[in-house]
């Protein structure tokens, strides 16, 4: 069964890097450069995971996540925040989002996909 992941990041290069790594790990990747497009895709596709940047052009990734948590289609989809805001405030902001994880930038390309998979599987078994 093909697993589907949505990556929301406004930085084209970071988006491309994460897409490559997830595709190499066997995922079908959907891309969005802002929260609005990301939510639209989440509504359309049945996703296994969402990889979300925090500083997005139209809203905070944490706010986008709250919207996703409020809708039936995305309520239970695991969200992994991948952000360059690694200081305490950055982590505080996303702590309240249920079923969410955190990976700081720069990412470790050798473990990135594995971490996502581990998180998705842990969320599924929980």
């Amino acid at each position, binding site marked *: 069964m093909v697993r589907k992941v949505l990556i929301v990041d406004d*930085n084209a290069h*970071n988006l491309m*890097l994460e897409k490559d790594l997830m595709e190499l790990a066997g995922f079908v990747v959907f891309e969005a450069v802002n929260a609005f497009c990301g939510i639209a895709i989440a509504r359309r596709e049945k996703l296994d995971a969402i990889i979300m940047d925090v500083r997005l052009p139209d809203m905070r990734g944490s706010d986008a996540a709250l919207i996703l948590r409020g809708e039936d289609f995305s309520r239970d989809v695991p969200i992994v925040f991948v952000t360059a805001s690694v200081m305490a405030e*950055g982590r505080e902001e996303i702590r309240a989002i249920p079923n969410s994880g955190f990976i700081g930038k*720069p*990412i470790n390309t050798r473990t990135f996909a594995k971490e996502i998979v581990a998180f998705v599987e842990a969320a599924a078994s929980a």
Partner: protein
Amino acid sequence: MRVGALFVASILTLGLLVYLKNAGMLLMIGAMLFALSLAAIQLFISKSIVSPLKRLAEAVARMGGGDLSARMDESKAKDEMLFLYRSFNSYAATQQGWVEKLEHEIEVRRAAEAALAYSKSEELFRIRFENMHEGCQIIDRDYRYHYVNNAAAEQGRMAKDGLIGRSMSDVFPGFEHTEAFAAIRNCMENRIGVHFDNYFSYPDGGATWFELSVQPAPEGVLILSADISERKRADSEYLARMAAELANRTKSDFLSNMSHELRTPLNSIIGFTEVLLDSLYGSVNEKQHEYLGFINSSGRHLLTLINEILDLSKIQSGKRDAVLSSFELRATLELSLTMLREKAKQRGISLEGFLDPIAGIVLESDEQMIKQIVFNLLSNAVKFTPEGGSVRMEARTDGAEDGVIAISVSDTGIGIRKEDFGRLFTEFSQIDSPLQKRFEGTGLGLAISKRLVELLGGRIEMQSTEGAGSVFSIFLPRAAGSAVAGAAAKARQGE
């Protein structure tokens, strides 16, 4: 006298008639004469004795009622009555004299007492003005000192006696050109009070903040002054603290933004080079691999720099709080050795630990910080030691104060020149000698280590011989509790 004579005459007449033996008739005539004389006597007594006595009694009653001016008319009395009247008048005059004299004395004494009370209350006021905490001075219409209390003289740093009668501009040359003087003149001319803070400059240098209240007074103006330098100092300290806090917050916001903005491109630099180095899309040739390695390690170096700047900034602003726990120190130190063993091996350096003296010792401190400090010292030692050299870590409880653990890291590296000792622990101070190649590193490691050691209540020491090697020693209290609280407070204050 007349009454007596009349009475005697009547008796003699009666006797004569009795002698004439005309008894019956005589008796009747005698009785009539007797009655007649009695009436005459009564009339006489009433006119010459009873009325004057009555008037006298009235006068006495008036006197008794307080009218000491009551007098008897001496022209209306004769003989004994005149004597009586005189005596009364004399007595009344004496009495009146005495009373008037007493009244006058009472009046005089009362006036004296009132004057005394007045001067006493004035004295009281004067003393109060003299000694009150605020300065008080009265300036006359020619801008001369009319009155100056102790505090005002003290505030002006002048002898009080020498001020009275002198003009303000004479006492304080140039005072007539100051804003304070303009305010005093405005009050003098327009009779409107004013209240303001004034930074008063003394002729012999120095200045103090005063709060001045200038009010119109009959003599000229009244100036009340209070030294508010303490308040101003507190105000400026408060402002400085606010500014520092704002600067700190700005700095913290800046660092947070900088960190984010640098990490975003670094993510691509490090990530893509790793993807290529790992040949995820086919292999690269040896030269390309080497160059990709350069890009990758440069990116990682930048990342380390960002992390260390953030770390240092956190420590400096007191935001890096020690998290205390109990842990076995030996295990922690061995973990740090393990982390560097591979790197040492790559460079052909022997890395050894001599930790037996602290076996079983449990520290009450921040394990993460100690790991960071020790890792930093070890990686420096490995970095600055040439191939074939050795690095050793020792830990012991002796050779230091009670309750203190000494951990030292020694190497056979390039050493440090004496003249560089001083700046070794300051930021961005990696020693760069023209004869030696520049070593990889941010120059922040030792500065961070020193601050962390101090945060844990310890200290760091260094001994080195250029070309022969260095020894870095840290001394850590077994229980960092109280030191941590103090150091954190100090770090916040120092900001």
